[in-house]
């Protein structure tokens, strides 16, 4: 078994000192992935041959003094809902059986232009619908801290791959918390940028108005480095923001003095949250106060409607987004269909798992004539109120701090029979998606040997401040430096 990989920053230092080659790095990542796969099931597919070739090309460039940037030659894993030309994309669903993409997601193009080497595709809940990866058609991923527990979801494979030291950077997608919640569950940094910061072109849509791609890293500094590559306007995504992308790394001054941290009272009620989680979050806020930040109570009064609102809008969009999986052009097609209707019904019945079906049904229902106004339109109105909540709260503070999840990572199987309980895993994270604001989860403590996450949310397009606060906290603490036990 190869040793866990270091942070991006550590790898860069090693590369610059020529202590390691990129080919060695990529080989190590592939070997470690393979060794841990039986225990973690973080991956749905590896890209070994191409990754090795790209690493060698990167080494050759480096030998000539050509380095494309901080990600050149770095092994990266991507969630298996991001398409790459010539590679399968499964979304952890049987419906995409046999599908190989003829085109690259914008994010893949950007990673490759920066020299990053994609080593594999990570596991997820089917079509990113879930909070545990238990909805993967190919079996759940496991938490490196305790393999009887979930790494969270839906980007659980990416989180596990970074937490287990397979890669220093993995990409996920976050529709209602699918980056931040698994980051909290596995003790790493997971960031959902502002909606529109990262192109969604080539991200297989779950809920288009909420989906956003973001990085998993061990440190906020690494997240800043990754975001400089990932963010930026894309003419192929109409919802992509045409705003300039700051040099996030330069925002990491380590100074938070005078910064105001808002503590939304609605997130700090004792009900439904593990006291150990609240205690760690309070301690983290106290640490930031010692660093010079101020705190104040703020209010996000419509928080209690967040989950309900989310579970109307996301399934509504999903029901439409997933209509293209019909067995006609690609993916799974039922055998010997009697007629068109039979082809649709059987292909989709066979191809989709139970949670996806549940959400398609829910979404179809709320968009139906006669129910649209009561559900979908109402949810959009509530969404406007939630967005306004954030605007008003963030007028009086610079960042908002909350727990990322109400509890530590739960045991596999613990909630899979109870969708409503599972949905509450996202209670603290869905609002950022509904409001479109950036959010990041960073490790801030442990309970029962499992990591706890601190969530920071900020103003639209102000990822820099979030990263500065997160980085300052990490300079003063070592939660992020702790490693899960090496599996026996």
């Amino acid at each position, binding site marked *: 078994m190869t040793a866990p990989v270091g942070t991006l920053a550590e790898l860069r230092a090693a590369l610059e000192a020529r202590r390691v080659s990129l080919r060695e790095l990529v080989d190590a990542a592939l070997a470690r992935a393979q060794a841990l796969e039986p225990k973690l099931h973080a991956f749905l597919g590896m890209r070994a041959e191409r990754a090795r070739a790209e690493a060698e090309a990167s080494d050759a460039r480096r030998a000539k003094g050509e380095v494309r940037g901080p990600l050149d030659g770095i092994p990266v894993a991507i969630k298996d809902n991001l398409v790459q030309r010539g590679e399968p*994309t499964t979304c952890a669903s049987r419906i995409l059986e046999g599908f190989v993409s003829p085109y690259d997601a914008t994010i893949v193009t950007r990673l490759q232009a920066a020299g990053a080497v994609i080593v594999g595709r990570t596991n997820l809940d089917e079509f990113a619908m879930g909070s545990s990866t238990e909805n993967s058609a190919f079996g759940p991923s496991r938490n490196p801290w305790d393999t009887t527990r979930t790494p969270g979801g839906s980007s659980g494979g990416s989180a596990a791959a970074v937490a287990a030291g397979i890669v220093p950077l993995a990409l996920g997608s976050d529709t209602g918390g699918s980056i931040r919640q698994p980051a909290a569950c596995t003790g790493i940094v997971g960031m959902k940028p502002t909606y529109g910061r990262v192109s969604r072109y080539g991200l297989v849509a779950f*809920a288009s108005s909420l989906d956003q791609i973001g990085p998993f890293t061990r440190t906020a500094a690494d997240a800043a480095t990754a975001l400089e590559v990932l963010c930026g306007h894309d003419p192929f995504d109409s*919802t992509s923001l045409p705003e300039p992308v700051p040099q996030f790394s330069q925002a990491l001054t380590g100074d938070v003095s005078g910064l105001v941290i808002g503590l939304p009272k609605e997130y700090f009620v004792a009900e439904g949250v593990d006291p150990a989680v609240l205690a760690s979050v309070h301690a983290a806020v106290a640490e930031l106060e010692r660093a010079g930040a101020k705190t104040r109570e703020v209010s996000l009064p419509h928080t209690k409607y967040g989950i309900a609102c989310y579970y109307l809008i996301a399934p509504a969009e999903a029901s439409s987004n997933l209509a293209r999986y*019909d067995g006609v*052009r690609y993916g799974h097609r039922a055998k010997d269909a009697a007629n068109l209707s039979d082809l649709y019904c059987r292909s989709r019945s066979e191809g989709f798992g139970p949670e996806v079906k549940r959400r398609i049904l829910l979404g179809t229902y709320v*968009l139906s*004539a006669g129910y649209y106004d009561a559900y979908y339109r109402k949810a959009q109105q509530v969404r406007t109120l939630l967005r306004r909540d954030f605007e008003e709260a963030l007028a009086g503070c610079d960042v908002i701090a909350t727990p990322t999840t109400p509890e530590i990572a739960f045991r596999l199987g613990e909630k899979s029979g109870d969708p409503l309980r599972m949905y509450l895993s996202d209670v603290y994270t869905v609002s950022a998606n509904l409001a479109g604001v950036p959010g990041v989860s960073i490790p801030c403590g442990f309970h029962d040997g499992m990591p706890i996450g601190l969530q920071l949310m900020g103003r639209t397009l102000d990822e820099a401040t979030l990263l500065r606060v997160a980085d300052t906290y990490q300079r003063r603490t070592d939660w992020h430096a702790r490693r899960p036990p090496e599996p026996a």
Partner: protein
Amino acid sequence: MSKVLEKYEVVIGLEVHVHLKTASKLFSNAPVVYGAEPNHAVTPVCLALPGSLPVLNAKAVEFAIRAGIATHCEVHPHSVFARKNYFYPDLPKGYQISQYEEPICTGGWLEIELEGKGGPALKRIGITRIHMEEDAGKSIHDEAVAGTGSAVDLNRAGVPLLEIVSEPDLRSAAEASAYLRTLRSILRSVDVSEADMEKGQFRCDANVSLRRRGETAFGTRTETKNLNSFRFVEAAIGIEIERQAKLLDAGQRVIQATLLYDPGTNKTRVMRTKENADDYRYFPDPDLVPLVIDPAEIERVRRELPELPDQKHARFVSEYGLSDYDARLLTTSRALADFFERAAKAHGTPKSVANWMLRDVLQALKERELEIDQTKLEPGALAALLRLVDDARVTAKSARDLVPELIERGGDPAALVRERGLEAVSDTGVIDAAADEVIAANPEMAARYRAGEDKILNALMGQVMKKTGGKASPAAVQQTLARKLRG
């Protein structure tokens, strides 16, 4: 039918789907082409591959603005694309991107010309809305292509369409047809569509209902889908009027339904009734931001809009001194109007050109079911032909006979006249001899003329003309005859 119309008033509203002549599709950079190999004019967006996203074609928006201004609509600076969800193999995403609650244009009108008792009259037809949407692909059930199954060609999927919805202001199949012709002419004038019905670029759905004369509430309507020729529109509406009248006469009610017209059998059949109508679950497309148009852009399009048929009509009256009626006929199509202007310029007497076009050229076109730009006749050739007449080098009759030939084969009129030996006869000897023969052969008519019956001269003239093969100048013949009879 007349009995039906005595008892019932027909109410018709039309929905027209028009392909916009953009180079690429509405939401992808795939080319818009006709007749390409199936599934070759496609991108990941047209195929609805996982992860693909729509990006709006700015040219299509400009065309929609043009169409809106040309039909006196309000063009909205803010409109929204929505998803219309339904499953069909030629609809790759499982939804069509369209506009629903907030279309780009609303509240317009156009005027159609109707034959009234006191001559032609104008009727204003309201336009409820114009919205932008993408076309679907094509399902192919032809055994040669699809074998025992069905095949899908997605080349057409995503081609930009305008849906133009009229108010229920039309009262007959003829009015419906006039509306469609006028609309097509306007859309061609502002250069947004070829509107070729045979290529499916201009398709119509007809909503038809009847109500007893004097009633104000509308009757139950049916919608006949996808009528792709003027003839089919008129036929399908006629059939539907008769069908509904029969039901109402029998005391039965019309059931709201969608019908399909079969040109082969000239019959309609029910596709679906309202009870099993689709629920399209419209909602704003989250992959697209609202379409926001700078009012300055709308003004720019307005300023640069090509001349509309109405404006051209008014200008033809004032600039060329044409009658209102002639000007309207010459502006029914942009091609015809352009032809007229070029011929008038080449010839110098617009009125004369107009007369020739309306009488001889249009007649010949009608007989051949051709549009002016589908012929070999050049504006300069028509002008040259008329100059030959003006210079008395060819008689009007001979010239008229040459028009069909110029339309079919083109060519230089002067050369054609020489080739056919149609030069006007100016040899007085020939005319004299013919006149003498005619007078000698018709002593009774000659006597009547001499007794003061002037009109009889025409009959004699006709005979002289015939003898000279129509090549003699009518004026010379008249003079000669009159001189000889009086003398």
